[in-house]
């Protein structure tokens, strides 16, 4: 087996057993990045020298017998995570020269375990997009078919895992930005419950929806990564002070008697036939494993995309007001302060970011605030209530992640509404604030990965991990590799 294709738990075993050193693994990953990066474009910044130094010190730590499951494991981060001393762009020209003075809490936790940072991953600008085409640093291509998008906004995070450029990665998910690229690239991606992982040091897009989560090669790795980054952080006042379970221990136990809900609004006529086929097969697998299926309804599903694009853009227009050229980021030359703000922002932001700032500003502006923003917040309550009442009868829900496999590069770039509608099955989970995981569940006739979504109750990550693990043990979809 290639080192660059190993899982965290496999590599950890090899490091612990001294069959491999972190330096060897890190070197193998850096070589792989160099060889496939021209085809894929997963990275904005590769931190080769720091990675080798971190690998050497991880090897010493392992030699002292002080290794943990993530010590010496070569990882990469979406470029939305602040990394002290390492340029962080968030996919935007406005941050092209930004060197963070501190690190994201989630990265600090991984680094403290001795994880090795390979670099910073490409993404849609400010996490606004579903295709990784809005990055100011070039597009990312899907490792399974390089004429297609990898999904977004954590497209680099998913493509890097699929292309053997990192053992695992972190992404963020505001409306599907971990799960949709995980689905399109054939990896496992988990959006935790809102408040489960600290957002401290994560560049804000829509603060009431943003959440940090892992992208990995299997469910066991997903549990390891989640356990490492989860937990209360006094520096994020929205993080929730509830104990972090042993997610790895929660994997086993199977799905016998588990009640799985099938929301009828997610199995619509427009669903791609290959996606439909994969869902039917997955349901059969779970049934064979002893799970019970219950037909349920989330009646306000059809309103979720509209709700999301009012709330997310409103929050974004406010969050992105800080990019004014005063304290950091791009500054344009101008004679007066107002022109400096306006020119710096206009030169620094790309089209999709401007479009969302415009929409959000409009939704918050005098005369429209109640009709758009407050209305959307009220519908958000209805959507949350849908989940609360459906979860009284089921333990988890099973749905597709995306209505189609990965689409072609350029296919939706000129039609933002069509692009937004590709997140129709992932957005409601963010609005409800609960957790969900995407995992490989099949391939289209053209050989493109198809993901299945397991939605859990708030702080029900253990249950979706256990269900996902049982499914993974019964199938072989996650073992297939993209050929590059």
């Amino acid at each position: 087996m290639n080192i660059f294709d190993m899982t965290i738990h496999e590599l950890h075993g090899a490091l612990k057993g001294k069959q491999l050193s972190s330096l060897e693994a890190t070197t193998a990953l850096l070589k792989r990045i160099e060889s496939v990066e021209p085809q894929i474009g997963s990275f904005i910044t590769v931190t080769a020298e720091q990675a080798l130094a971190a690998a050497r010190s991880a090897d010493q730590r392992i030699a002292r017998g002080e290794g943990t499951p993530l010590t010496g494991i070569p990882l990469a981060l979406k470029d939305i995570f602040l990394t002290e001393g390492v340029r962080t762009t968030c996919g935007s020209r406005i941050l092209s020269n930004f060197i963070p003075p501190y690190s994201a809490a989630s990265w600090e936790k991984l680094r403290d375990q001795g994880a090795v940072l390979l670099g910073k991953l490409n993404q849609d600008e400010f996490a606004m997009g579903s295709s990784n085409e809005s990055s100011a640093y070039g597009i990312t291509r899907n490792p399974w078919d390089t004429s297609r998008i990898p999904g977004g906004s954590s497209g680099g995070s998913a493509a890097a895992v699929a292309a053997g450029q990192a053992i695992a990665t972190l992404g963020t998910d505001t409306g599907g930005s971990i799960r949709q690229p995980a689905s399109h690239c054939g990896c496992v991606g988990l959006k935790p419950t809102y408040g489960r992982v600290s957002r401290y040091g994560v560049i804000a897009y829509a603060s009431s929806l943003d959440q940090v989560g892992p992208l990995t090669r299997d469910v066991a790795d997903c549990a390891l990564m989640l356990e490492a980054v989860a937990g209360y952080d006094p520096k994020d006042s929205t993080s929730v002070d509830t104990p972090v379970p042993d997610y790895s221990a929660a994997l086993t136990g199977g799905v016998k008697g588990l009640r799985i809900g099938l929301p009828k609004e997610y199995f619509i006529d427009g669903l791609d036939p290959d996606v439909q086929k994969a869902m039917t097969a997955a349901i059969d697998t779970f049934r064979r494993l002893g799970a019970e299926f219950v037909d349920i309804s989330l009646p306000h599903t059809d309103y979720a995309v509209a709700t999301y694009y009012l709330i997310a853009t409103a929050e974004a227009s406010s969050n992105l007001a800080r990019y004014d050229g005063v304290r950091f980021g791009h500054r344009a030359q101008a004679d007066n302060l107002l022109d400096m703000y306006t020119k710096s922002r206009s030169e620094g932001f790309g089209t999709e970011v401007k479009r969302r700032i415009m929409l959000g500003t409009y939704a918050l502006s005098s005369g429209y605030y109640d009709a758009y923003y407050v209305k959307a917040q009220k519908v958000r309550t209805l959507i949350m209530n849908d989940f609360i009442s459906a979860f009284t009868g089921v333990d988890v829900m099973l749905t597709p992640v995306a209505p189609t496999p990965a689409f072609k590069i350029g296919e939706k770039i000129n039609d933002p509404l069509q692009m937004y509608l590709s997140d129709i099955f992932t957005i409601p989970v963010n609005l409800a604030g609960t957790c969900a995981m995407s995992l490989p569940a099949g391939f289209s006739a053209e050989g493109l990965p198809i993901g299945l979504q397991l939605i859990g109750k708030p702080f029900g990550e253990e249950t979706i991990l256990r269900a996902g693990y049982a499914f993974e043990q019964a199938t072989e979809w996650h073992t297939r590799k993209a050929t590059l």
Partner: protein
Amino acid sequence: MKMTIADVEQVARLARLELTAEDKELFAGQMDAILGYVEKLKELNTDGIVPTSHAVPMENAFRADVVRPSIGLEKALANAPEKTGTFFVVPKVIE
């Protein structure tokens, strides 16, 4: 509802953005389409529904009132596009 170029210009002013003529044209059409789509929320009766601003019900989160080290001047100013001494420099605000 129809988004005019003047509407786009007004929103851009509020957002501190300067748009090219092509972008104004593009955004007027696209915002029209998107705002037309979100009109569907009006189908729902939301009388008496409490708006949700956060997924997790939350009270104010207070920390203990103790002095802790902060990031420090040097780091805070490290990314400044222009600085002098301990200050960020901006174009003159008061004549």
